[in-house]
């Protein structure tokens, strides 16, 4: 009998060995013959498998940093989250704001050698517009027609003036795709070309190992000059703590958004360069204005006055994410109003506001009871909410913190709109017109169902003019209205350290005004 057990084990061990053998057989690529050590390779941490390499069907954060190196857009966002030229070297907006003309560079080529032309641009946006499941489709309904007067000119004829459309073209899902490859009758999501991308970007796609890595190699014919690196490998490491160790051990070179707990440790490491990356994505409380208690602006003002943003910033984010008072992120200086802001922390003042509005203390010392705040379990949000509840209690406002898993939170807050207060983050760029997308009457992301005609009008006016000073003026007025109505309270800014191997220079973070937010075209090994 012992022999039988031994036999079973031997068979199992054999299976284990065979598995190793088999997987090695499937491994077949072209590295043979290359001299090791001479190649300049950069390894970037990726947190998950990309859904697809088609950059335009859906906004996928797991492919976004990869496709920015494979494809080009008309314009792109840089590290300071401002728009810089990409395929379009310049663009003009007509007097009435309804015609936008892009002038394309004439030296861009696809990875197969074909030139990039205005036809490809038209094909890309026409296809997105026709397919309602593609991310930018409903945004593109603003475009009546796209004309291509010559190979390097694209004209967008719009049915409504909106200059923020240009900024949207520099964000998710607006990459120009090659018509001659994709236009084969198959939808993009099922198109084999989506898994074996031919782009026009600084790197060419080489290999995708499921769950392990994505490798891209330099495109020597890139129109802005051949990249300095030979290869960029995106190594998939789902766990943040493991990724930090991999960086410390030199197994990866680039780690975006270091967990706050590891910042000091990495700062002290001389092989690692830490740079603060700030985003216009403040943590914020959204009020459900359909709720009876919350619909009273005095209650909202009292809550805003009784939240200690300084304490939240220090205790939960080690001061990396700073207190935010401006109603549009202070990071975008030209548009942010720092005069008409949300109130400063003052518990006595909060109590005074409630008493003046006629609220009475109950036996337990509360003016208002039964408020809840829905938060998702990530990024320090539950802890921040608990600190808020503690200071609010001192002001006689009871706030109960309800923590959910992200998808469950989203279902409750955004689909069912079943909340009183909720805590969220999210990008408020790429243009201040995002204020309209977040707080305009009746729009999808306006969970609190805020509605103010004057605010809507100001934003419509701001979108219709190309003049930045005039726009800044209008957006500041709109923020003054928000500061008055308080449909939401900004709490802290969003910022995180990017950690890079200090042997490399010209990383994405260094490219404000020059290159894209996640592109490695100019990255090189320091001399």
């Amino acid at each position: 009998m012992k022999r039988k057990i031994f036999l079973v084990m031997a068979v199992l061990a054999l299976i284990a060995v065979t598995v190793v053998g088999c997987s090695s057989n499937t491994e077949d690529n072209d590295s043979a013959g290359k001299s090791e050590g001479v190649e300049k390779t950069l390894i970037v941490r990726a947190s998950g498998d990309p859904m697809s390499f088609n950059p335009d069907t859906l906004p996928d954060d797991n492919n976004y940093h990869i496709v920015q190196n494979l494809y080009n857009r008309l314009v792109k966002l840089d590290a300071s989250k401002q728009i810089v030229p990409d395929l379009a070297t310049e663009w003009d907006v007509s007097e009435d704001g309804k015609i936008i003309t892009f002038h394309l560079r004439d030296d861009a080529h696809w990875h197969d050698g074909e030139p990039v032309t205005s036809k490809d641009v038209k094909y890309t946006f026409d296809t997105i517009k026709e397919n309602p499941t593609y991310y930018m489709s409903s945004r593109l309904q603003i475009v009546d027609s796209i004309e291509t007067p010559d190979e390097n000119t694209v004209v967008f004829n719009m049915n409504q003036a909106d200059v923020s459309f240009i900024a949207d073209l520099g964000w998710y899902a607006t990459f120009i795709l090659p018509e001659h490859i994709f236009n084969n009758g198959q939808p993009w999501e099922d198109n084999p070309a989506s898994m074996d991308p031919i782009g026009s970007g600084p790197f060419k796609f080489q290999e995708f190992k499921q769950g392990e890595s994505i490798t891209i190699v330099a495109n020597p014919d890139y129109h802005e000059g051949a990249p300095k690196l030979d290869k960029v490998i995106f190594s998939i490491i789902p766990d943040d703590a493991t990724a930090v160790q991999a960086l410390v051990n030199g197994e990866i070179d680039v780690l975006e958004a270091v967990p706050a707990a590891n910042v000091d440790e990495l700062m002290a490491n001389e092989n690692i360069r830490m740079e603060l990356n700030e985003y216009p994505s403040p943590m914020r409380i959204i009020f459900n204005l359909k709720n009876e208690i919350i619909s009273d602006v005095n209650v909202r003002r009292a809550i805003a006055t009784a939240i200690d943003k300084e304490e939240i910033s220090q205790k939960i984010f080690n001061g990396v994410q700073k207190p935010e008072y401006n109603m549009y992120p202070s990071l975008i200086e030209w548009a942010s109003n720092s005069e008409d802001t949300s109130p400063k922390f003052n518990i006595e003042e909060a109590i005074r506001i409630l008493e003046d509005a006629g609220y009475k203390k109950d036996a337990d010392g509360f003016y208002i009871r039964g408020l809840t705040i829905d938060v998702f379990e990530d990024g320090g949000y539950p802890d921040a909410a608990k600190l808020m509840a503690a200071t609010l209690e001192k002001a006689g406002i009871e706030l109960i913190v309800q923590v959910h898993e992200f998808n469950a939170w989203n279902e409750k807050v955004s689909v069912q709109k079943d909340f009183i207060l909720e805590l969220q983050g999210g990008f408020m760029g790429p243009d201040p017109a995002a204020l309209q997308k977040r707080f305009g009457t009746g729009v999808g992301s306006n969970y609190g169902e805020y509605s103010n005609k004057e605010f809507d009008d100001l934003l419509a006016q701001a979108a219709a003019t190309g003049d930045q000073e005039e726009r800044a003026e209008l957006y500041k007025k709109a923020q003054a209205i928000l500061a008055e109505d308080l449909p939401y309270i900004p709490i802290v800014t969003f910022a995180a350290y990017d950690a890079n191997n200090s042997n490399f220079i010209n990383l994405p973070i260094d490219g404000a005004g020059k290159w894209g937010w996640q592109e490695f075209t100019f990255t090189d090994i320091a001399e």
Partner: protein
Amino acid sequence: MKRYVAKRILTGLLTILIVFSINFIIINLAPGDPIKTLMGKETDDPALRAALEQKYGLDKPLHIQFVSYLKTAISGDLGTSIIYNRPVSEMISEKMPATILLVLTSGILSLIIGTLMGIVAARKEGSFIDVIFSGFSYILNSMPSFWLGLMLIIIFSSVLNLLPTCGMTDPRTSYKGIAYVMDVLKHMILPVGTLILIEIPLYYRIAKSSVLQVTNEDFILTLRATGMNEKKIFNKYIFRNAILPTVTIFGISLAYLITGVALIETVFAWPGTGRLVLTAINQRDYPTLMGIYLVMSVSVAIVMMLVDILYAVLDPRIRY
């Protein structure tokens, strides 16, 4: 025996069908849907949501979704992942080898080590070695696996610089043949080590308690009274009787191998099926989840059947 096997297969099939239905209900009861992952975290566009719900049939009533899914599953098709737009069977099978490698290696090693430790401790109950082994096993048993994994990374990779931090291969190189096998083996040491440490207490406790139990049976006392050699009593009578529960545990742990080591796979960035399950849960990728659970319930059913048959072989008293 033949009738018994047929009966077992039939109950196995019924179990799978029931589990399948319960899974479908539970997965769909969970709040949230895959649409949010598709739309991205940044925006909520009602028009896009409606178009995507229609495309994936999520706007249809649940019972219609159930019937259409059951139909494709019965025809042997696990469906297509909503998130990755690829056949679920392909996604599972391409990640299986990595998980099997990890689970089998650590399973067999911890089975051997844990059982041996248990036998030694049971034969010398109360001795110094028993105290040490039992203490060791309690400490390991109370350690969270992901924490232990991270500690091993910090010790062996970051401080001692002996082993790679994570992954299955070194992304900088693309080895072939024997160099590839060595690379994988090097990357395997920490995750397999963590799993062995975590699983040892399981086999240790089972082996120790069942050896003790059998040793105290009357028939052992009788055998001793006959003056039979201690060694022969142990090898022929105690061990064979005491090993049965260990076989069951080993079988069960193999059946759960698809999802069982998800946390370890996440910590060590190991490209296996456990991570696939966790991701699918987070993204509410219904077809992938249903597919994995189906494969899992089928393998549990099969393994349990095999275990029952193996029982009959190991223990001649068991006959049906």
